[in-house]
């Protein structure tokens, strides 16, 4: 390799190094400047909100003055990051205020810039801008865009469709169950959690008609979602829906079913059904969880059931069953089992000898 080439390479590398140094320095200086700018926007916004909510006596809020103040701190269309920060501040403020002031603030936000910023994001080609727009729409309670959100419920991007689905639940409540159990794509655990939470927070009285119609969906995520709703709203009359999934072939559905059923007490008939299904569960850990649940909700110890497990279950189930029996006063049964094991072992050893 020629020395000249290497010298050129060293020069190029030094130049790259200097550029990276410069980037670090720029990044640090910019961050400081940006922090100051954001603090200025925040304090201006706080002043505007407080004067609007609690004006001085005989003094009306001057909207033109407010707009000028915002423009002075950089809230202009050519600076989208500043505008975005203002929107975030608006959402944060609206979240923390209730009652009359909430309505007043909502009115103020429609009168000051940015105008229609969130809705315009729905047409963006970038997923994170689109998803952000949807979030802003539902956080700012702009229900006039519900139709747009419904269109996005099956979007290719997980974040866009997730935000759209949450928005649909917020605006339509239980009626949203007309769409949600029939989506084209799988739903994540977080989507399910958010939907259940939003229903619980905003529509606490369950609309069983819409819910029960959704029972027809055979999509796994819909089964999980409905089970979570039944659990959250403590719909004891719909426990049968959960019980049918206890021994489902799919691990995740079984997991959700066992988790959801754990919040309920069961009738003798339901308990019998659960015990029957117990044997069809292929995963020992899930069997263990169910066993603990059965023990917790049972009034009495079902000795034949436990003895059957003690003699025929897997090693882990046997040990847990022994634990349950031992701690519930059936020490003799446990001792008898271990004695039986011991004699069986001794017999087999003597035969082999």
């Amino acid at each position: 390799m020629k020395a000249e080439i290497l010298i050129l390479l060293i020069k190029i590398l030094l130049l790259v190094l200097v550029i990276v140094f410069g980037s670090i320095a720029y990044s640090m200086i910019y961050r400081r400047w940006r922090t100051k700018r954001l603090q200025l926007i925040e304090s201006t916004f706080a002043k505007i909100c407080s004067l609007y909510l609690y004006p001085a006596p005989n003094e009306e809020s001057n909207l033109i003055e407010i707009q000028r103040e915002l423009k002075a701190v950089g809230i202009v269309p050519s600076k989208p990051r500043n505008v975005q920060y203002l929107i975030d501040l608006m959402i944060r403020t609206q979240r923390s205020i209730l009652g009359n002031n909430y309505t007043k603030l909502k009115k103020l936000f429609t009168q000051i810039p940015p105008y229609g910023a969130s809705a315009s994001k729905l047409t963006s080609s970038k997923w994170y801008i689109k998803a952000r727009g949807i979030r802003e729409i539902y956080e700012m309670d702009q229900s006039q865009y519900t139709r747009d959100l419904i269109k996005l419920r099956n979007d290719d991007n997980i974040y866009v469709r997730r935000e759209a689905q949450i928005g649909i639940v917020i605006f339509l409540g239980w009626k949203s169950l007309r769409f949600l159990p029939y989506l084209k794509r799988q739903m994540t655990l977080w989507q399910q959690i958010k939907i259940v939470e939003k229903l619980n927070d905003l529509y606490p009285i369950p609309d069983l008609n819409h819910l029960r119609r959704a029972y027809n969906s055979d999509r796994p995520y819909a089964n999980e979602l409905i089970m979570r709703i039944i659990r959250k709203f403590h719909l004891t009359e719909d426990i049968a829906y959960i019980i049918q999934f206890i021994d489902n072939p799919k691990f995740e559905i079984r997991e959700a079913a066992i988790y959801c059923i754990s919040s309920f007490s069961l009738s003798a008939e339901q308990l019998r059904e659960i015990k029957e299904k117990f044997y069809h569960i292929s995963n020992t850990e899930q069997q263990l969880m169910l066993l603990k649940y059965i023990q917790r909700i049972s009034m009495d110890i079902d000795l034949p059931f436990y003895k059957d497990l003690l003699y025929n279950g897997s090693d882990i189930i046997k040990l847990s069953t022994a634990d349950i029996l031992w701690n519930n006063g059936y020490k003799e049964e446990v001792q008898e089992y271990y004695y039986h094991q011991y004699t069986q072992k001794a017999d087999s050893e003597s035969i082999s000898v």
Partner: protein
Amino acid sequence: MVILVEIDLYYYIFWILNYFFLLYGLCLIALYFFAIILSTRSVNRNKRKARFLQVNDIVSATDIPSITLIAPAFNESKTIVENVKSLLALQYPYYELIIVNDGSTDNTLQLLIDKYDLESFDSTFITQPIPTSTVNKIYRSRKLQFKQLTVIDKNNGGKSDANNAGINFAATELVLCTDADCIIEQDALLKMVRPYLEEFNQEIVACGAAIGIINDSIVKNGVVEKLRLPDSLIPMIQVVEYIRAFLLGRMAWSEINGVMLVSGAFGLYARNRVIEVNGFNIHTVGEDLELGIRLRKHMEEIKVPHKMVYLPETLCWTEAPNNIDVLIKQRDRWARGLWETMTLHKDLFFNRKYRDMGLFYYPYWMVFELGAPIVEFLGLLSLIVFTMLGLINWNVAILLFTSIYLLGCIFSTISIFIYVKNFKHYNTGKEVIELLLAAYLEPFLYHPILVLGQIQGYYKKIFGVKSGWGNMDRKGFKTLPKERL
């Protein structure tokens, strides 16, 4: 005539080795550049995703997966009380803490019993899906504020065995394995659980996050009160090394679903999957990598689409070796762990059955992780031999060294740049300059020690020299004076 043939042969070997080192170096440089692109994408993507799933949303949610944090402790009396305090202070709604006292010979257990008012429970019938050394007693606190704390006292069986005992006892969907001497960020679990909540067509089998170095920082009530750069050079360089490894290396792998290693100091696993593969392997000191590979192999075998992910944020802080002896011991152990794991799973090498893992990820680890110290050592040997034979053109060699050195500096500087741009841990000019200086001194003062440690580890494996974990003397964290607590 014979002399001429010999000189020709040396020349021949010289050129072959030259081209080998050049090719190896070029591949490595290309991979690093590729890693920079991937990790930048990955960090940006993570930041964008995080906006839609904020910790405040998760903390108030009800159906999120429950987590058990498992921390093995062996002779940790200096730091155990402070660290348990830190682990108990984590924010997560459904969270249990299991400390596994792995047969400590000091007063670790007694300190825990006294401080947390523990009482023992009957452990006759505890289920052990993964076999471990004998569990002697299980302790729980009488105090309500420590109700999520369980202490398992077992016979010594090593870190993996202790982790397995904790996994057996846990009753949650996820288990987070950490070290009792780690300080975990308060919202770490809320952040770590994100991938499990968001994934829908692939199962997350493990999740890791960046680990930072906390030497000479101030810890108050088990929380990092003031993060400082270490005073001495060895841990300072390790700060840069960790930033580079986690930000460039693991984030890049995460972007292409190529993560095989989730650090043993801080890794979140799906408990059912860990049990299916029979937990950590107690016969290797590289148990974290070994478990990662075994988990991925298992998922490939049962044909379940899966992912191992990394988060770019530093969520766990640990004390790094403060002197050369301890550092060499640590790297010796890591090298042995790597050797053992690679040997154990050699069937993966270009095995199409395991798809990308067999064709790319495992061969990468074999050639560039396991192979790098060997190649470096060979390079050094050849340099000495060819110098003695007078075959080295020193003008070119010095220029080549300078180029390689500058390339290394560029990679480290870019890592520091990505870190400074995205995270606020080290954000003063002084700290950044110190980090850069440490990065530029690393090839001269630190890297040779690493290679020495690694070669020592390989030597022990090749020649069957018995060696265990080795001890790491801890200084303990700086805590604020009592009147300020």
